């Protein structure tokens, strides 16, 4: 049973910029009572506030919202990278996360070596890793580049490799950030076919994007976020219409930009 549940999730980001990160400051602050209050007042970004979601097999959720609304943080939290300071996250099923284009791959290693690392991370045995290599090779169409260090890749190549890799291990829950849309048109067609095949097998997709067209095309449900909160949740067309309605009321020119 594949499912994703978030229950009243709060995630706070401490910002340790410059001085507050230094040991000196902390020690001095502890030594003098007057500064203590100052040091305790860390700057914290409330990245997610009371987010609750429940997804089951076959759900394809689109996350929309302005930059900094908490979409990527929510994906990272569902992937188990960030742990909530309050609330509960429960994900049943093998997670595949396409969060940033290089996917934690080492740019100094070749594509093939990075594939092998990913295979080991997923607990694959040697023959399965060889099959994985072949599958990614066929899909990403990198040719000779597969044996070159990834820092020589174009950003499109990195996207292709990342996408091929993350979908080849066939996650049951795919968490995807919008960067993968950077692929060229021909690749997008292939990617769409592959992703659709995956989602057809009753898996869960959570996709964060700015493109309303993508949301209406791919998703069965849309959540709109603003400042770390869920402010709208429903069928894609409804949420998008309400979103555009708000935008239109605020600025009639905006529809052109998002449409």
């Amino acid at each position: 049973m594949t499912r994703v549940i978030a229950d009243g999730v709060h995630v706070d980001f401490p910002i340790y910029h410059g001085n507050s990160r230094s040991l000196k400051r902390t020690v001095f602050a502890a030594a003098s009572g007057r500064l203590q209050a100052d040091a305790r007042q860390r700057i914290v970004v409330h990245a997610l506030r009371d987010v609750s979601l429940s997804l089951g097999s076959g759900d394809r959720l689109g996350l929309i919202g302005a930059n900094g609304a908490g979409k990527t943080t929510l994906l990272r939290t569902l992937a188990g990278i960030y742990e909530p300071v309050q609330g509960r996250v429960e994900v049943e099923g093998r997670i595949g996360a396409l969060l940033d284009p290089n996917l934690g791959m080492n740019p100094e290693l070749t594509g093939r070596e990075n594939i092998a690392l990913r295979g080991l991370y997923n607990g694959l045995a040697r023959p399965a890793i060889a099959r994985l290599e072949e599958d990614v090779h066929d899909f990403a169409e990198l040719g000779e580049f597969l044996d070159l260090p990834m820092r020589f890749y174009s950003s499109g190549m990195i996207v292709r490799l990342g996408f091929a890799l993350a979908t080849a291990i066939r996650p049951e829950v795919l968490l995807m950030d919008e960067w993968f849309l950077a692929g060229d048109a021909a690749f997008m067609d292939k990617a769409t076919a592959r992703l659709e095949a995956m989602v057809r097998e009753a898996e869960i997709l959570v996709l964060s994007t700015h493109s309303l067209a993508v949301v209406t095309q791919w998703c069965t449900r849309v959540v709109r976020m603003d400042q770390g909160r869920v402010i709208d949740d429903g069928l894609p067309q409804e949420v998008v219409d309400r979103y555009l309605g708000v935008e239109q009321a605020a600025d009639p020119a905006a529809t052109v930009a998002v449409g």
Partner: protein
Amino acid sequence: MSAVQSRAQPAHLLLLQSGLTVGARQHLALADCRDAVVMWRLALILGWFDIRLRYRGSLLGPFWLTLSTAVMVAALGILYSKLFRMELHDYLPYLALSLVLWGFLSTLVSDACGCFTGAEGMIRSMRMPHSLHAVRVVVRNLLILAHNVVVIIAVYAWFDVWPGSVFLLALPALLLWTVDGLAVCLLLGPVCARFRDIPPIVASVMQIAFFVSPIIWKPDLLQGKAGALMLLLNPFYTLLEIVRAPLLGAVPSGPIWASALGYSLALWVGAWLLFARVRGRLAFWV
């Protein structure tokens, strides 16, 4: 779609909860370590790739490590045997061994500081056991040590001094080093990720430790009761000695082992408590 199916694994369940008790945190930290053990092959390969990358495109590859150690041992050995008026035959094997072992300890400690900050890309793009990064650092340093052992063997062969079967006593000591190395990573890794000025402090402590511990000078230069006590209280000396003495054909004394074990125990307890406390926050710090 041709896809590769993961090997049959038990149901994947990710459960993240806030407001954990101390006991629950310990439990999660234990699970983290257990997951890292399951992924031991990944840790081995990561450690090996680290070394291979550093020397990719170079002629000698990782054997540059061996060569640079050999040059340093030869230069220092000849100079210091004159300074300390010691027989080269007596001093050089001691120095070669000490320098190689100390090199391992000090690199391990300085790598431990960057254990998590250096793996930022991986930590922020997928969930993996944090202790895996500690294993990676220890594996990398053990592999470097293996390359440097060649120098020790060459020096032994040159002077035809062999420790005899006593050297087997170094094996349990090396095992202790490995476990201590993991603990150092779990202790210094989070602290250095949170406070960015710890690594320079650690580096200067290690440099001072190099000079105050008998590494280029022999412990018997420090005489009397006070001298012996000073040595026993120095964790760097006792930990070094439990490996070094057997490889020089001597049995480390009981107090030396007791001191090494005592310091190790303190290190483990500290590392464990810290790691269990901050494990969930690490991703925000790197």
